[in-house]
């Protein structure tokens, strides 16, 4: 990490680069980082994307049912998901920490995650903390799964996991996470040490290209303004980014 950008800006920029023009791209109702990534992509390399942001006053209002049905028909190109815990089996936990019958902590849970995890064609997972408490050997509750039985119809998917330390890719053939790149200021060994399961790390794994001045400037000006004007997590957008 540097002082050029904060963690939210880093993740927004890195996720935005994976958004392809002309795709139908959606995120949920409490999805500030995905919303900023989507609007950054729209403002830069992907002006023709169709956007559904459930927490916005403008993007995709009343489209909740449409979004789920699009996904069920295999027509939702991209969706964003986070969770409190991730494990090496490809599971996400949005429900509880501890014993599900007597949880230490209870979270909102999520029906949509368990659906979109295998129906969105490109799945963007993200977690703002990369540590041994968030990347665990086994999640306390499976709310969404990257592995499903072959008898269950599953979209052919591309899946990435974005963190403050690295970008991981879920390899469907190997059924495990591969280190795609590590961010400036960390090393593959650091990333592995902060991860509670074994990553596949190729010897030639590269450093993540840092956010450019242009990406950061667009995020802090155009995207921030757009989020405030469209009632898309306006209050969050006011404070999330460093001064332009």
């Amino acid at each position, binding site marked *: 990490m540097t002082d050029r950008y904060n963690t939210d800006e880093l993740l927004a920029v890195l996720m935005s680069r994976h958004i392809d023009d002309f795709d139908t791209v959606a995120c949920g109702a409490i999805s500030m980082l995905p919303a900023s990534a989507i609007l950054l992509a729209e403002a830069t390399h992907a002006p023709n994307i169709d956007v559904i942001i459930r927490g916005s006053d403008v993007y995709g209002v009343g489209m909740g049912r449409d979004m789920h049905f699009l996904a069920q028909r295999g027509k939702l190109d991209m969706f964003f998901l986070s969770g409190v815990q991730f494990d090496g089996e490809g599971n996400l936990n949005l*429900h509880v920490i501890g014993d599900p019958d007597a949880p230490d902590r209870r979270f909102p849970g999520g029906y949509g995650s*368990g*659906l979109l995890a*295998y129906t969105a064609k490109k799945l963007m997972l993200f977690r703002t903390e990369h540590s041994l408490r968030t990347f665990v050997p086994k999640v306390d509750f*499976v709310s969404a*799964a990257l592995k*499903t*039985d072959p008898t269950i119809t599953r979209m052919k998917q591309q899946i990435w996991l974005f963190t403050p330390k690295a970008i991981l890719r879920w390899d469907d053939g190997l059924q495990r996470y591969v280190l795609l790149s590590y961010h400036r200021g960390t090393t593959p060994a650091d990333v592995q040490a902060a991860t509670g399961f074994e990553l596949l790390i190729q010897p030639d794994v590269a450093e993540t290209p840092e956010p450019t001045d242009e990406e950061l400037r667009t995020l802090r000006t155009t995207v921030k303004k757009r989020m405030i004007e469209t009632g898309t997590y306006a209050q969050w957008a006011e404070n999330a980014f460093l001064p332009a």
Partner: protein
Amino acid sequence: MGVPYIPVRGLAGTDVFARRTDMMIVHNPFDPDEKTVVAMAINPDVAICHAIKADRWGNAILRRGGDELLISQASAKVIVTAEEIVDQVTEDDPDGLFISALNVTAVVHAPHGAHPAGVPGMYEMDRDHIKEYIAASRSDETFQAYLEKYVMGKTEAEYQALVTRPAVVAVDGV
């Protein structure tokens, strides 16, 4: 719909099935190679829905974008509470979603009856009250105190007198 269950695409691979009996994974009867999640029908004994307006026969106008119509059609008895009772509600009313009296058992005149939620075009949700409710729900003791303060033994009029009347939305400021 009156069907016993419905197939659902979603939730496979999760721990939901270990903890619930109303959802399971079964063979698709039309394709033996595929399995699918199915969810049991939920048929409430009584549904209570708040309407923008209703007539004395039970025709009513609900907010758009909600699930009240679906819930009403699944329930044995349906009570509609309404901001306003009018002479006649028609299907083409522009203010919201029409629900036919065929689905409705009883109508109750309940001005500000959505409180602490709001009614689109009429009044905003009472955010302070919702914050109070959330804070109270953190423990059984505080939640019991909330119920004693606002609910237990209180009439609707007493409840409305206890809470702040929500701000009225300007007619064209929905």
